[in-house]
């Protein structure tokens, strides 16, 4: 069952030098309980992607197009809360109807009325009716969602571990109190007592002594601060956590321990995860699927094994062969020529073409789109490796 579906999503930043095309026509989906890793070099748009999913964007940023569907099983009693929003209705499998994207305009008895998007047509299409029993899932589109509504999705639905978050603890408050405050904001119905109990449990879960709740950030080591960040991300029982470089600043032994703990918690709670890292070795260990980004685009997506054994995109292959390995035979690493693309004026056609050993004429002119290479593997390339 899908939890998150991203379709044709573009987000650009406006700067004095021009428009930074940081996320460009990206699409993927994530199942419930699944972990996806996003890899790519510095500046390829990984953090921008994460911030877009949470709509935590700076003022100079704008989502230009696309959808972010956050799916829930349909429950009639919650239908009212979706009234007026853009949704993607997914009918029961057996039913044979197509999923429908549109604004939920009305609830009539046991029926939902959806006004499909106009999509350039001059005449508005007629509303579509679904009976409650026909609907399997409702995907709330986060892109047009108002900020007040979005706040209810953050933390409880999707929470995030920010890049370098361990340095963002406020030094003058106790760590436990900072988590408590976040919980009180997002779960106002939970009592202080209950919340504290929950934080103590979470501390235990991430390997911190619950007594550390009463301590200040400077009494924590780097690894402990990062564990507390993870506890905070878990505090509102999210369905999805986006972890942006969660262990990059940590020493390898601590990193390894924290990653294993996160993996275990994720499985135990049947949570979905999006791990973001430039380190493909880290991603390989924690993710079932890997998405490779290059220059603001998702260029390949497949399960971890396939990415390693049968990459289809030349950049994926280059990325793999530029990492030194601790195991196996020691071999000469191939360096990619050139520099990562400038996202203000990216290369025409395929953004990788100036550095790609397989580039042909078409690559300079036309932008390739994601195509299925084998079941479970998509890649955007005119001359895929298979």
């Amino acid at each position, binding site marked *: 069952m899908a939890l998150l579906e991203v379709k044709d999503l573009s987000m650009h930043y406006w700067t004095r030098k021009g428009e930074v095309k940081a996320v460009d026509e990206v699409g993927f989906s994530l199942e419930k309980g699944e972990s996806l890793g996003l890899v790519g070099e510095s500046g390829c748009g990984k953090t921008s992607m994460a911030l877009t999913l949470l709509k935590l964007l700076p003022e100079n940023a704008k989502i230009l197009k696309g959808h972010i569907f956050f799916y829930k099983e349909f429950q009639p009693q919650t239908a009212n809360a979706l009234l007026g929003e853009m949704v993607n209705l997914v009918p029961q499998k057996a039913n044979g109807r197509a999923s429908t994207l549109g604004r939920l305009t009305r609830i009539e008895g046991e029926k939902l009325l959806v006004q499909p998007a106009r999509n350039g047509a001059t005449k508005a299409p007629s509303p579509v009716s679904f009976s409650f029993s026909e609907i399997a899932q409702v995907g709330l589109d986060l892109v047009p969602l108002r900020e007040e509504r979005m706040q209810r999705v953050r933390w409880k639905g999707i929470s995030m571990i920010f890049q370098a978050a361990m340095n963002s603890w406020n030094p003058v408050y106790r760590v436990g109190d900072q988590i408590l405050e976040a919980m009180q904001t997002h779960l106002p119905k939970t009592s202080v007592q209950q919340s504290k109990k929950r934080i103590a449990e979470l501390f235990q879960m991430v390997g911190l002594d619950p007594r550390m709740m009463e301590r200040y950030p400077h009494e924590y080591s780097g690894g402990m601060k990062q564990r507390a960040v993870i506890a905070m991300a878990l505090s509102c029982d999210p369905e999805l956590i986006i972890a942006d470089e969660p262990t990059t600043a940590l020493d390898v032994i601590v990193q390894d321990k924290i990653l294993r703990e996160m993996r275990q918690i994720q499985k135990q709670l049947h949570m979905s995860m999006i791990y973001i890292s430039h380190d493909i070795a880290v991603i390989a260990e924690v993710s079932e699927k890997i998405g490779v980004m290059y220059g603001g685009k998702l260029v390949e997506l497949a399960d971890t094994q396939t990415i390693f054994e049968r990459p289809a995109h030349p950049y994926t292959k280059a990325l793999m062969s530029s990492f030194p390995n*601790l195991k196996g035979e020691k071999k000469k690493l191939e360096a990619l020529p050139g520099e990562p693309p400038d996202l203000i004026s990216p290369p025409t056609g395929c953004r990788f073409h100036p550095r790609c050993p397989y580039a042909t004429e078409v690559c300079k002119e036309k932008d390739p789109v994601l195509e299925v290479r084998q079941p479970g593997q998509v890649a955007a390339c005119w001359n895929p490796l298979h």
Partner: protein
Amino acid sequence: MSNPEQTNPVIIETDRSTSLVRIQNLSKTFPVASGFFRKGNSFIHAVDDISFEVGEGEILGLIGESGCGKTTTGKLLVKLETPTSGQVFLKNTHVEVKLPKQKAGVAKATSAKTKAISLVTSDGFADIAHLRGRSLKLFRRNVQMIFQDPYESLNPRMTIYDICAEPLSVQSIGSLMEREARVAELMDLVGLTPPETFLFRYPHELSGGQRQRVAIARAMILNPSFIVADEPTSMLDVSIRTGVMNLMLELREKFKISYLYITHDLAVARYMCDRIAVMYLGKIVEMGQTEDIIQNPQHPYTRALISAVPIPDPSVRRQPMELKGGVTKPINPKPRCRFYERCPMATQRCATSDHPPLEDKGSGHSVACYEV
């Protein structure tokens, strides 16, 4: 060399054999401020009685977790820090000895000779602590350090040309034209081509990888024999990093340069280094041929470290080794094994004995542990 009166510099040129740098019982402590007014009698033992050699054309890797003393060791080797005790010897160093004034003219020459020779070991190494004046200048030419952060290590107000040519002008080497030619040559060597497109830019107009290449060009311009490279690629992007690593390997091949290659990344160390020294809280706990260390680590800390490295191959399953606690600071360390608190193999003997000595266990693989 405490006598300030001086005449007669004596320069001794030493001959070549296989090792280039040798450090002996090197230590560096830093005082720890405790409270506002007290000076405090606590010390961080950042580097604690370590000894090793780096061969000519050899790359020795120094690995370990944050704060274990890698950068401090590197700085001691290039004389950016002064050792608290112990010595750094460098081969082929011109040692200029400042001698006290002599009364009798006849005694002068022989006395000068004895004095000078006492600073150079029998196999021709000179202690860099005694370098002054011209010999120090020559040392600065011969030994270079490349820093981790290419954003901070280059002067933002100087052009790439000036940055690269500066060592030449400091050393008053060459005419203007010769300097220009040499800079262009180096730019070519590090892959910043064509040089004209880079020479008159400023550091902020270059990418991280390009900046690190500039730092390497600058370090190489005086033909050094020894370079301390402190995490030179850890700030760089994957695709760029490989280029810089391959460049450093090529330069070693071409010019027989020796490196002390500091990194916390074991996979990088495996790729770059001939031998590896593993540091833990100021001590070297294991040292040996790279493949020996990676495939057959002996010290419990090295084993834990290697078992924690993620492997970019989903078909490999690791067996991580659990360690208690985390890295601390070596402030007034107890006189026992530095790894004792975290060691899963510690015994009674470890609790009551001094820090174990680094002992050769055969074929140049040394380990500092009672239980190996």
